[in-house]
């Protein structure tokens, strides 16, 4: 989500060296129009409610963010220090655009906002390490009737 040229050489190399094997299959489904979709956000920004446990380094667990959460209740304990946090400190929506989603919902542009969103700590582990908890969250999204998942890296 960033221009390589904007990073230091060491940071760019660090990110490029991540093991990112292609998905073995290419599932692709169409679906109803956006105005009929139930939308959930899945973030890797290490967000959670203030009273939840902080994320730790190498944390593979997730936190549940209720759809009606007050954004003032969200904090960030993502393990990496190598991205900007000052934007989030000023406005949660620059990372987790729930207010913008609520506006689209209010305008009838989406069907509805999901009852639950999910947050991971997207650092300290390779993507493959998250398969088990990723599948678990996928099952819960499906059971909740979510048919539009917005995956937002940080």
């Amino acid at each position, binding site marked *: *989500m960033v221009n390589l040229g904007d990073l230091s050489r060491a940071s760019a190399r660090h990110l490029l060296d991540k093991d990112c094997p292609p*998905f073995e299959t290419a599932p692709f489904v*169409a679906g109803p129009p*956006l105005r009929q979709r139930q939308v959930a956000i899945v973030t890797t920004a290490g967000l959670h409610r203030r009273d939840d446990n902080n994320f730790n380094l190498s944390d593979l667990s997730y936190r549940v963010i209720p759809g009606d959460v007050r954004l003032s209740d969200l*904090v960030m304990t993502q393990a990496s220090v190598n991205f900007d*946090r000052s934007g989030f400190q000023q406005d949660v929506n620059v990372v987790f655009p729930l*207010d913008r989603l609520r506006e689209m919902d209010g305008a009838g542009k989406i069907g509805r906002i999901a009852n639950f969103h999910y947050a991971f700590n997207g650092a300290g582990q390779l993507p493959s390490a998250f398969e088990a908890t990723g599948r678990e969250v996928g099952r819960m999204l499906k059971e909740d009737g979510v048919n539009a998942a917005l995956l937002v*890296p940080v």
Partner: protein
Amino acid sequence: MRENTERLRPPRFLWVPFELGRPFGAPDEREFQARVLRAALALLERQGPPPILDDFPDNAPGDGPADMTGWSCPISFPAPEATDQLALTARILDEISSLTPWQALARERRGRTGLGAAKMGIEDSARFLHALWAAGGSTDNPSPTLSLGQTFRGASEDMKTFYMEAATARPSRVSSRELADWFWGETAAGELLLALHPACLESVDAGVRRVALGQLVPRAQLHRLNKG
């Protein structure tokens, strides 16, 4: 990054040219954020074939050299050479005292604060961090619920958050780079965290060592300040 995503080949992907940490562009830019969100969700109505990799066409508001001039922190601190006689803790507590009204203003205007990772007050976080540094990476843990490494991590994050919230209380076009350079290069708090980096790499506590290794000082700042 686009390069990694092209290797992964997800079904649908919107690439945005924004800095790490700002996937929707810029804070307090409601319409711009909405445009990014609409562009991402619009991919759901595309019929394929996969992978669909779209590029968002615009840079974030305020991005670029034209906006990177003239910022200064609301509070200016004495130059370190003028305060060599003061203990580092005293200098940090002075900074906190000076910044507290601005942090309170930011909290009031935004209706929120990101503080709280250490589960203790900001002055206590400063004292704990100084004690940890003075003792070479191992000291009494003031938290009954967090490990020493977790307290270290939380206290260091709370320090950064407090300073950043205070420094951005006054509306401006300050860039994240300017903010980071200010914190790490011009504040006593940044000086303490930089000193903790080598000290805690030698800690007897494995959790403290892990934090020092990769969760304390940004890679870019270690490089900029020749600390890496």
